[in-house]
């Protein structure tokens, strides 16, 4: 079972103008149709790597290839979900979700029809006319997710999407995310610093070491998710083993 790579990261390095080296020689292939997490302690450059894949940050060494082409900037096949939601405060939920389509010049009626569908899918039906400040953090991030789903990108890049959401909301959101992604065949690249979140969600965990970030290990937690509840998954032996294995590796970085 070796699915072809949707994203290939080849020898990527990033040194900021300040001289700080964020990433060094990162090489990793991210399989199509799977959820891969980039996991590591703070300061390991995982968000930087995600932004390089997204085309928002230029690497100073190496290249990222998406569908065989070198990434020069953002592209229609990649959509981003931001840690701080990045919603327009003066726009309604409907306009925010449709914003990616608006930028692409999709006519109003068409884009709003698509947006309404996505809003319903993320569980926000009825909130179309609300403004972001009227929503909780978890609901705002659902808007961010709906916006990314609306543009029909094959690859969804999620930058610590649940980090500013409380724990209960986060768990519910994680379960919903798995359901939402199950039949879509999307390639998801998900940045997190939570070991449990990484193992719970992903088919593949890329562990990054800190300063400068590079790939420490790639794990494949073989967890059976079909027809099982979240709690069953969290009691699964493979789940617990993977969490423990990652902790053993990460422990040496947190001193």
């Amino acid at each position, binding site marked *: 079972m070796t699915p072809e790579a949707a994203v290939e990261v080849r020898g990527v390095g990033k040194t900021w103008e300040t001289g700080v080296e964020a990433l060094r020689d990162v090489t990793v292939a991210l399989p199509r149709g799977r959820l891969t997490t980039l996991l590591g302690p703070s300061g390991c450059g995982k968000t930087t790597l995600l932004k390089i894949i*997204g*085309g*928002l940050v230029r690497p100073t060494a190496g290249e990222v290839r998406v569908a065989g082409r070198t990434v020069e*900037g*953002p*592209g*229609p096949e*990649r*959509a*981003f979900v*931001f840690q*701080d939601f*990045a919603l*327009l*405060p*003066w726009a309604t939920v409907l306009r925010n979700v449709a*914003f*990616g389509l*608006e*930028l*692409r010049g999709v006519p109003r009626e068409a884009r709003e029809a698509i947006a309404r569908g996505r809003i319903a899918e993320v569980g926000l039906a009825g909130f179309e006319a609300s*403004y972001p*400040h009227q929503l909780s953090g978890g609901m705002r991030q659902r808007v961010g997710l709906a*916006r990314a789903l609306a*543009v029909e990108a094959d690859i969804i890049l999620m930058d610590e999407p649940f980090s500013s959401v409380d724990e209960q909301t986060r768990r519910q959101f994680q379960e919903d995310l798995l359901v939402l992604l199950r039949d879509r065949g999307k390639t998801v690249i998900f940045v997190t610093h939570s070991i449990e979140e990484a193992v719970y969600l992903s088919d593949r965990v890329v562990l990054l070491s800190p300063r400068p970030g590079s790939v420490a290990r790639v794990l494949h937690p073989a967890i059976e998710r079909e027809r099982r509840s979240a709690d069953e998954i969290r009691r699964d032996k493979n789940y617990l083993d993977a969490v423990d294995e990652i902790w053993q590796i990460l422990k040496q970085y947190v001193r």
Partner: protein
Amino acid sequence: MSDGPAAAGRATAGGGRRASQALWLGASFALAFGVWEAAGRWPVSPAFPPFSATVLALGRLAADGSLARAYASTLQPLVIGIAVSAVAGIGFGIGMGLSRAVEWVSLPVFVIAQAAPMAAIIPLITYVYGIGLTAKVLAVVVLAVPVITMNSYKGIRHTNPSLLEMCRAFLGTRRQQVLKVVLPHAGGLVFAGLRLGVAMGFIGVVIAELLITPTGIGDLITYHSSVADYPEMFAAIASIIALGAVTVRGLERLERRLFPPEIRGA
């Protein structure tokens, strides 16, 4: 520009709260005018008329048409000056916010202009442009432009970088970024700059009318002071203060309606 108890008023406030706020506002005015009346009757100075005499004088000025004539003449440089300042100030502010080159050339000028007591250069304006309408318009512009420019500039420059990144990630062009993110984000601060600019414009026009040549309301003040008609002089002064305060307050309300703080980007 008293920020009375009504400053706490919100559009969402219930009718009962609004009524009690109006009551408090009325009480505060009554107290102030009462103290004025007492001080005028005491008297503090023969040149300080009581409140009632000032109101009667205001009535006389209004009745003989001199007040209307004065404002027709005063509002001219004020309105033209604010219009010129709005166009120039918002234009420069947006230009500086969007282009590093424009910023490099003009930012120092506006930083100095905003900090300096610009009223000091009004005599210089007279030197160059004489004593006509142009000079008075310029006096308004010189005072109003810096604050309008700097506010617009800050509004543009302080756009949430995360929103810019979002716009780029969803394939927004630079043009879309400016039209759909940067300008809406700056709207609130630009409007606040206009409000402050209008307040400065009132100062500018009064200084011009007192300093350059006495016309309009400035003429009313200087004339009645020279013939010792103190109630009329105070009536003229009070009327321009009231007009300025009410205008700026009205703009503040409009601003809160157009750009409620919670959906405002900045």
